[in-house]
C-alpha cells in the first residue's frame, strides 16, 4: 500500500493505452500524457509497460510505502528524495516499508513525472481500464486525483528484488527543454478544401506558444487569423472552422474558431470543428512535458511511412535492450 501524505497538484493513476474501445460511446481513452516516460517506468521495475502507475503533474507528491518493492521515477525531474536522500531518475531502486517518497514542485523543464512500483498499483478496472478519466470522474483511484489520506493498494507479490538497479541507457533519456519539435501528419481536414496551402504552411512553420489554460483535455495554442478555404461552415455553422460533427482522433489538432487545440488524453470524442493535423503516435508523449504558459512548439510534418517507422523505433527503444544494470 502507498499512503498519500500530500497529493500534489494533480496525481492520478493511469494505465496504457488507457480505455480503448469506448470512443463510440463518447469516452476518450485517458491514460498517461507522456507514454514514453510512463512505459519506461514500468519497464524498469519489471511490469508490463501498460500496468497501472502514477502520473504526477508538477510534482508535490509526498507518500509513504508500506511494502518492499522496486520503484522507478521517470519524466520531469522533481528533485525527489527517499527518506531525504536524492533519488535517481530513469533507474529502479529498492524501497521498504516505512520509506518516505518526497517530490518537490517542478521548477525546471518538463511537466509530468511518473512513479511505477513492481507489481503495480491495484485499483479496480472500470470499462476495461484502470486509467483515471478526469472529465467523467471515473477510473483510477475513485475517479479522481489522489489526496492526503488516500491509501492506494499494490498488487500482492512483486517485491521487485530482482528488478532493482535497472537503468535506461543515458543516450535514450529525453532532454526536456522549453522548445519542442513535434511530428504530425496533415489532415483529416487540411488544404486545399478547408484551409489554404498558406494556412498549412504557416501551421507547420510557426513557433506556437502553449497557452496557460491547458490540461488533460486539451493543450491550447495561440489564436491565429487563418485565411480559410471556405467562407463559412455551410449547414454546420457560420464559421469556416465548423463542420458536421465527426469523431475526433486522439491527439489531433482541433481548430476551434481561430484557436488550435491539441486534443489529448481526456478530450472530447466528437465535435463540429475541423482538425487540420494529427500528431503521430511516436510523438504524442512530448506534449505531456510541455509547460503551459511558457514552452513553445513547432509541428514537423511527416508522412505515414515515416510515422510507422517512428512507431517501430519507439517500440524498440522502450524494450529490454535499452536497459542496463549496475
Amino acid at each position: 500500500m502507498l499512503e498519500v501524505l500530500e497529493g500534489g497538484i494533480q496525481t492520478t493513476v493511469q494505465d496504457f493505452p488507457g480505455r480503448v474501445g469506448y470512443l463510440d460511446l463518447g469516452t476518450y481513452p485517458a491514460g498517461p500524457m507522456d507514454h514514453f516516460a510512463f512505459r519506461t517506468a514500468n519497464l524498469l521495475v519489471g511490469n508490463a509497460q501498460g500496468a497501472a502507475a502514477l502520473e504526477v503533474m508538477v510534482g508535490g507528491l509526498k507518500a509513504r510505502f508500506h511494502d518492499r518493492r522496486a520503484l522507478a521515477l521517470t519524466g520531469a525531474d522533481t528533485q525527489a528524495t527517499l527518506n531525504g536522500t536524492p533519488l535517481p531518475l530513469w533507474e529502479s531502486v529498492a524501497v521498504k516499508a516505512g520509506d518516505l517518497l518526497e517530490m518537490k514542485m517542478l521548477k525546471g523543464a518538463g511537466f509530468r513525472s511518473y512513479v511505477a512500483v513492481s507489481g503495480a498499483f491495484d485499483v479496480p478496472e472500470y470499462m476495461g481500464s484502470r486509467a483515471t478519466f478526469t472529465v467523467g470522474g471515473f477510473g483510477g483511484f475513485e475517479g479522481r486525483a489522489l489526496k492526503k489520506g488516500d491509501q492506494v493498494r499494490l498488487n500482492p507479490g512483486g517485491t521487485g528484488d530482482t528488478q532493482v538497479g535497472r537503468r535506461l541507457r543515458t543516450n535514450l533519456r529525453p532532454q526536456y527543454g522549453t522548445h519542442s519539435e513535434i511530428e504530425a501528419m496533415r489532415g483529416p481536414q487540411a488544404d486545399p478544401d478547408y484551409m489554404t496551402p498558406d494556412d498549412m504552411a504557416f501551421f507547420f512553420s510557426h513557433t506556437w506558444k502553449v497557452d496557460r489554460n491547458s490540461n488533460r483535455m486539451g493543450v491550447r495554442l495561440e489564436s491565429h487569423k487563418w485565411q480559410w478555404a471556405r467562407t463559412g461552415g455551410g449547414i454546420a455553422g457560420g464559421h469556416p472552422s465548423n463542420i458536421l460533427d465527426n469523431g475526433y482522433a486522439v491527439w489531433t489538432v482541433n481548430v476551434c474558431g481561430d484557436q488550435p487545440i491539441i486534443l489529448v488524453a481526456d478530450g472530447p470524442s466528437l465535435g463540429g470543428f475541423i482538425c487540420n493535423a494529427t500528431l503521430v503516435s511516436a510523438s504524442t508523449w512530448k506534449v505531456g512535458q510541455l509547460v503551459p504558459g511558457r514552452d513553445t512548439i513547432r509541428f514537423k510534418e511527416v508522412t505515414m511511412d515515416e510515422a510507422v517507422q517512428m512507431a517501430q523505433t519507439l517500440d524498440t527503444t522502450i524494450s529490454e535492450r535499452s536497459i542496463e544494470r549496475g
Partner: protein
Amino acid sequence: MPQVMPRNRAVIDTLPARGARPPVTYRYAGDRFLLLEYGDMVLDLTMNFRIFGLNDALKRSGVDGLIETVPALRSMLIQYDSLRLPTRRLVDTLKQLEETIASVDDLNIPSRRIELPMAFEDRWTRADIERYVKFTRKDAPNVSNGHNIEYIARYNGLRDPEEVIHYLCATEWWNACIGFWPGLPFMFPLDPRFAIVTPKYNPTRPWTPEGAVGIGGPCVAIYPVASPGGYQLFGRTIPIFDLQQRNPAFKDNPILLKAADRVQWVRVTDEALEAIREQVYAGTYRYKIVGYESLNVKSYLKFLESVKPEVAAFQRRQAEAVKQVAIP
C-alpha cells in the same frame, strides 16, 4: 483548360459515386486513425444509415488490426494498428465493403426503441434557465415566462408550448451518434414533418441539470451530467448515464444509449418523473427498451417520399416564422 487543384495530402484515396452510392473520401487522421466520409456536407439520414451498414460490415469482416470505429452523421472514424494493418490494406478492405452494401435501400439497421419519460417545461430546467437570465443575460430573447419552450414555438411558427410538445412526441428520435461527452446522444427526428429547429444560446448557459433535454439546430441532445450547454431546453428525462451503475440498464457500462437507437418521449408530470428517477437509482425501474428491431431503409425512404408535401408546407411555415423572431 481543366482546373489544376493542388494535391490534397490529407486524402488517402477516393471512391467516385456509382449509381445510388455516394462518393467516398478516405482521409488520414494521424498514423492510428482514418476518417471516412460519404458525399458532401449535408444533413441526410440516409448517409448515416449507410455508415451503420458499413460499420456492421467492417466489424463482421474480421480484418486484423482494426481497433474501434466511431460512426457519425456522414462519417466514420476508424482506429487501427498500422503496424499490423497497413493503411493501404484497410482502404482496400473498406472499398471492397462498399460493393457489399451497394444500395442503402437494402439495409436493415439493427435498432432499439427506447421509451423515455419526459417532464416538459419541468421545474429543474426552469430553475437553471432563470439563473441564466439573472446572472448571464437579462434580455435573452430565447427566454419567455422563464423557459425556452415558447421561443421554440415562435421560431417554428407553432401556436404554443403545447404544440411544441405535440411535435416532439409525434416522432421517434434517431440517435445518429454518441460523443463529445460520455453517453451524449445526437438525435434527429425520423419523421421530418415534425422537424423543429432552433438557434443556440448566446452566450452559452453555465448550468444545465443532468437529464435535461434540448435542441440546437435540428439536433436533440440529452445532457448525461450537469454541465454548461447551448441548446434550447424543453424538458427533463431520467438518467442516461450512471457512474455507480445502480440500475440493471447500466450493468455493462454507465452509458444507456447507443448509436442507431430510437428514442420516443412519453409525457409525464414533474412529480411522476421525480418518482421514476428515484426508482432508477433504487434499481427497481425497468427502462422500456425494445431491442433489436430493425429499421428497414427501403420502407423508410418510401415513407419520406409520401410526406414530402407536408414537410415542405411546415418548412414554409418555419421560414415565415423565423422572420419575426430575434436570434439570441
